[in-house]
């Protein structure tokens, strides 16, 4: 099952379990069905529960909050993270605050699905992922799946969570295939996943960066470097215990975020690790992420914009002070840097 199929599967399951689950957003019932993620939902659950909308992000998020107050469990979809910036007021000042601000008397079960673009000229305004902004907002949960399997489990947990959830899907995850459990399969929010245990170094990543980290592991395992890879799954709340336990064991940390490294989730992880694991640290922690500047469009300007498995190997090589010949890997790269695979022909 690929990523959109896993999302679609989760939606179908949620909507059959609970009649109060609603799916709406620009294009949810158009011919393309949000990259297939909302395929056949309208046919199966009717036009009342699955509906297209005006291009009005701020109102649409407010309407979701109102639906939640009225007893529904809305799932709002935005085809790009960038578009939801028009709805920051409703997310931050209303949805996130409602439960606390009104004396815990009403809660807002509400999922906002955001797709993050990347490469092939997505450029300054179609490739941003401000999950770190939202992770800075008490009252929100921010979920970042990294594979079809955890996407399904996390989406089901998000829909049945009692709080507003920002659900961040990286477009480059969409063509990944893996076996996904059938039925109502849930992955808990707020719990990180230890993808591989190891003793030399801890790598903490999220979203598509976990795919790159997994690729790096294949290479590093062959070289007998024992890495522990932790995929965060959620960046608010963060599973700090799992992180501290791991760094206390390995003494080394690489924290990778899938957006600008500046003031990122990785920054916060390093800050807290220094505080909590100081005496166990063998090296200074390493932070990785996108550069702290506006993403350009041109093929020529986007080279090396994103960390990849090679840059992870490079960091490990300098951290452990061993030669891993990462330059050779670079020479072997075949797929152009701005697409996830040759299947991607644009535009989005």
């Amino acid at each position: 099952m690929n990523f959109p199929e896993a999302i679609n599967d989760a939606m179908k399951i949620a909507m059959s379990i609970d009649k109060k689950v609603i799916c709406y957003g620009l294009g949810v019932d158009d011919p393309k069905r949000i990259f297939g993620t909302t395929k056949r939902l309208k046919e199966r659950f009717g036009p009342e529960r699955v509906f297209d909308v005006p291009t009005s992000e701020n109102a649409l998020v407010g309407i979701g909050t109102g639906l939640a107050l009225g007893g529904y469990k809305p799932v709002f979809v935005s085809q790009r993270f960038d578009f939801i910036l028009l709805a920051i007021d409703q997310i931050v000042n209303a949805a996130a605050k409602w439960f606390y601000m009104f004396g815990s008397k009403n809660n807002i079960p509400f999922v906002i699905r955001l797709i993050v673009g990347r490469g092939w000229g997505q450029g300054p305004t179609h490739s941003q992922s401000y999950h770190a902004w939202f992770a800075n907002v008490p009252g929100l949960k921010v979920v970042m799946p990294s594979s079809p399997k955890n996407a399904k489990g996390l989406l089901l947990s998000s829909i049945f969570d009692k709080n507003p959830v920002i659900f961040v899907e990286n477009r480059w995850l969409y063509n990944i295939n893996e076996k996904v459990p059938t039925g109502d399969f849930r992955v808990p929010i707020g719990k990180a996943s230890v993808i591989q245990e190891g003793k030399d170094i801890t790598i903490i990543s999220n979203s598509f960066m976990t795919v790159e980290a997994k690729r790096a592991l294949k290479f590093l395992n062959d070289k007998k470097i024992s890495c522990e890879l932790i995929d965060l799954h959620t960046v608010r709340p963060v599973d700090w215990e799992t992180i501290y336990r791991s760094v206390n064991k390995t003494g080394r940390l690489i924290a990778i975020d899938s957006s600008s490294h500046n003031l990122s989730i990785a920054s916060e992880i390093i800050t807290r690790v220094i505080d909590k694991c100081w005496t166990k640290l063998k090296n200074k922690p390493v932070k990785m992420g996108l550069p702290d500047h506006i993403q350009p469009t041109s093929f020529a300007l986007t080279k090396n914009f994103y960390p990849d498995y090679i840059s992870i190997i490079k960091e490990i090589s300098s951290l452990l002070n061993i030669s891993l010949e990462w330059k050779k890997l670079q020479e072997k790269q075949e797929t152009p840097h701005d697409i996830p695979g040759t299947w991607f022909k644009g535009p989005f």
Partner: protein
Amino acid sequence: MKNVIDYYKKIYYVMKRIRLVEEEISKNYKHQKMRCPTHLSIGQELVGGLISLFLKKNDFAISTHRAHAHYLGKGGDLKALISELYGKITGCSKGRGGSMHLIDKKVSFMGSTAIVGSNIPIGVGLALSIKFDKSNKISCIFLGDGSIEEGVFFESVNFTAVKPTPTLFICENNNYSVYTPIHLRQPSDRKIYEMVESLGVKSFLADSRDINDTIIKFKKAVKFVRENKQPVFFEITTYRWKEHCGPNEDDHLKYRSEKELSEWKKADPLKEIEKVLLKNHLLTNIQIKKITHKIKDEIAKAFDYAEKSEFPKFNSVNIDEYAN
């Protein structure tokens, strides 16, 4: 069909109660026990009275920073309101929200928000939930003349124009957004209700100084929303007597003319209703005294309750960030 005057007695009581509550808040604010920004509704009580006549208990309502009159008109608990201003655990939002964040679920008063315009789409969402439920409730959104300048207002009106929901927008046009008069914010020859009508939502205009006409139109508006399950925009011209925010007057700032204020005060809808009731022998001066006494007694008890209530305790382990 009832005569309009039959509504006067009830609306009088509700409006009088709102006036006296607001005056008591205003009087006591200087003691620094109520420590949050507050926007009083003195002069604008008519809308609170109207909703008490025509909204049902389970109709949704959602309001703004200036919410006291709406909360009380909808039947919100007075003790919980005063306690909220005092920041006490017995406040309607447990002291976390203050004057601008009121809730009373028992009467479907779903909340009030302090970001201008932000309650509007939420009210439309509530109306959409009513539509999905196929119930015959309506969702009532209070807003000011300033909030219609926010983008989300247009987004919300457009949404419900294309996807009809039982939404009643009640726009209290008091001519000001803080100190800025409406002619500096909106073209003078463009009327709010006409603009909304042209966006595709049936609209009414009422003047709070013409009480009969306002009551008749408001009744019609509610009926239309409930029966047709379609939105209505109801604009009512009104006037705030006190300062924009706070318990005092702000006329020394000279942002509005003395004449304007005194003319509106002369046309006070509450006084007008009282006059009509007296003239028609539906109320006597003795009864007015009794009513006033009864309400003042209730208010005194509410203040006493708030004074005696406990402050909330801060719990750093469980701050109630999330619902479980």
